[in-house]
């Protein structure tokens, strides 16, 4: 009896730890940012008002809530810079996720169809870039994409172009950097689902009169839907908020939302406006996650 109670205590604890983690490191910071987004900027330490003063008692609390306002959200709506920035981020995230899917799927498929003893090697090779810091790899790309960098040298030497094109500070460079950096996040979930797939199903499809290409679309692809969904989300969501890659490789004319937040925080020292931008971003990204949850539940029920 006592042992049972002890066991159930540990089980409850094990279930609650992740919730406690999310509470402490996601919900609390989010509430702080949310509060900040309802504040006003000021030249002080911290650079916003109101600050909750518990020493002032009940009146202090009342004054605190009275001072909160939605001004920053109104600002987001009135200045097209923010809207453009959001659209730009979603556009870059959507297109690069699509490119990642088109490049990543054949890679994952090839790994999954390689003899088993080679698969582990190929998976390690896929994640090998992570052994170097992202920043260093992006600096390496800056080097490669320079006017006189290796890429242009090769292009000119092969006479593909006569004049070396400008790569840096363009969207193309941003795309190159993002696709390069996020490829493992697309390949790994796809590989995980494709590797589990029973190859007899393709034989069954062929046996029933289905050519290979059709069998891919009617059997393989639908069965890898959960991997496609996971890879897409795993890439799309962080790319929307990506800061380092567009900042180092991309142009400055239309910043992504991560750059806008950075500018508000560190350039304009407007913490409340930056917080409002961040809160809206979180709300935007919750939508695809909910869609994913819904789809994943449906797929789980199917399997």
């Amino acid at each position, binding site marked *: 009896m006592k042992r049972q109670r002890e066991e159930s205590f540990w089980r409850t604890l094990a279930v609650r730890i992740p919730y406690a983690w999310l509470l402490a490191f996601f919900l609390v910071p989010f509430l702080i940012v949310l509060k900040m987004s309802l504040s006003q900027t000021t030249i002080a330490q911290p650079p916003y008002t109101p600050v909750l003063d518990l020493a002032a008692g009940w009146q202090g609390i009342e004054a605190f809530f009275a001072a909160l306002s939605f001004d920053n959200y109104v600002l987001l709506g009135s200045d097209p810079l923010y809207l453009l920035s959001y659209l730009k981020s979603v556009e870059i995230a959507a297109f690069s996720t699509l490119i990642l899917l088109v490049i990543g799927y054949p890679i994952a498929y090839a790994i999954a169809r390689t003899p088993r003893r080679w698969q582990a090697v190929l998976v390690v090779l896929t994640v090998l870039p992570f052994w170097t810091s992202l920043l260093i790899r992006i600096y390496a790309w800056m080097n490669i994409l320079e006017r006189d960098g290796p890429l242009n040298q090769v292009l000119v030497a092969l006479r593909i172009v006569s004049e070396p094109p400008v790569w840096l500070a363009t969207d193309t460079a941003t795309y190159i950097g993002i696709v390069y950096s996020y490829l493992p996040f697309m390949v790994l979930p796809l590989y995980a689902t494709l590797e589990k797939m*029973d190859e*007899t*199903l393709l*034989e*069954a*499809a*062929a*046996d*029933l*009169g*289905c*050519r290979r290409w*059709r069998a891919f679309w*009617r*059997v393989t692809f*639908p*069965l890898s*839907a959960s991997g496609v969904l996971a890879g897409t989300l795993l890439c799309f969501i962080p790319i929307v908020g990506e800061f380092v890659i567009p900042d180092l490789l991309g142009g400055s004319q239309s910043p992504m939302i991560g750059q806008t937040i950075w500018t508000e925080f560190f350039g304009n020292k407007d913490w409340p406006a930056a917080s409002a931008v961040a809160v809206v971003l979180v709300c935007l990204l919750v939508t695809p996650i909910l869609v994913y949850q819904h789809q994943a539940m449906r797929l789980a029920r*199917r*399997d």
Partner: protein
Amino acid sequence: MGTVGAKRGFAPWADPNPRPLLRLEAVTKGFGGAAAVDHLSLDVFEGEFFALLGPSGCGKTTLLRLIAGFERPDTGRVILDGVDLAPVPPYRRPVNMMFQSYALFPHLNVEANVAFGLKQERLPRREIGQRVADMLAMLKLENFGRRKPHELSGGQRQRVALARSLVKRPRLLLLDEPLAALDKKLRGETQFELMEIQRRLGLTFVIVTHDQSEAMTLADRIGVMDRGRLMQVAPPAEIYEQPNSRWVADFIGDVNLFEGRLGDDGSSIEGTAAGRLRTAGKVDAEPGAPVWAAVRPEKIAMTRQPPASSGDNCLAATVVDIGYLGDMSLYKVRLAGGAQMKAAIANIGRRPDGEAPAFDEEVWLIWPPEATIVLTR
């Protein structure tokens, strides 16, 4: 001889000018040096239920995959309806296969699984719907059309797999261990259903199985395979009563085997561990040649009293072990010379001389000469 044991008077293989539906000509297929199928030739006839029977790893599944087109023969030809199938890819062969794992598409419901093959033929939607509905009705799956494979029992999944492979009306249906995953009772029921379906649709079935009672029940003819070769191809009764080799006699059912020499009269075997054994009929060997006598345990009668002298084989023995199986008992006995034999006695009622023989009892084993099968290899 060819028609011995043939069911329902169906014996196209006995025709002097056979016109097989499927013909395998010296087909060989190796994997990494080892031949899974070794110079194998076989004819299968229209409307036939043919069983490939053999121990695991004998190459029977490889043979099926060669016919379906998933493997290509190293040498030899696979001919269907007089057409060499070598250049025909699996998706164009008028052959369908029911996979051992069923290989149902997990993302499609029962209807869509069954309709999959018909959609590839780009038939009109109404015809597809009709044929799928008919097939589901025939296999008593009408109420499960909307279910996904994981929502079905093992027996239902087996039926869906069968429906999916039948709905295209193949010239030849290949079944790879179709009943292996079912429990024993369901397997028995499904066997008869499978025969019924095959006869009703008039299709040709080639089934692969390692279960000899299944092959015996289902098939018009059985091909017994070992190490990539067909050891014997014949109707079930002939395989059992007239095995052509020690290997087949030993593989199918239970058997007592004795090595000896063919006697001078040509109808007895001398010098076996059981002494001189009488046989009936002519043996195709020289007197004195080494031969083997095979006696099925259930052909042997057992008595306590020595029988009156007759032409039967008659041996004195001691009971050393009894296995009671309900419908019959399997006796292990020791002969005077020390050799052991098995005799199966049907438990049809109380024996006239009282209770059945017990351990250590002295008994007589009796069997007629025609029950002694003489094997030359």
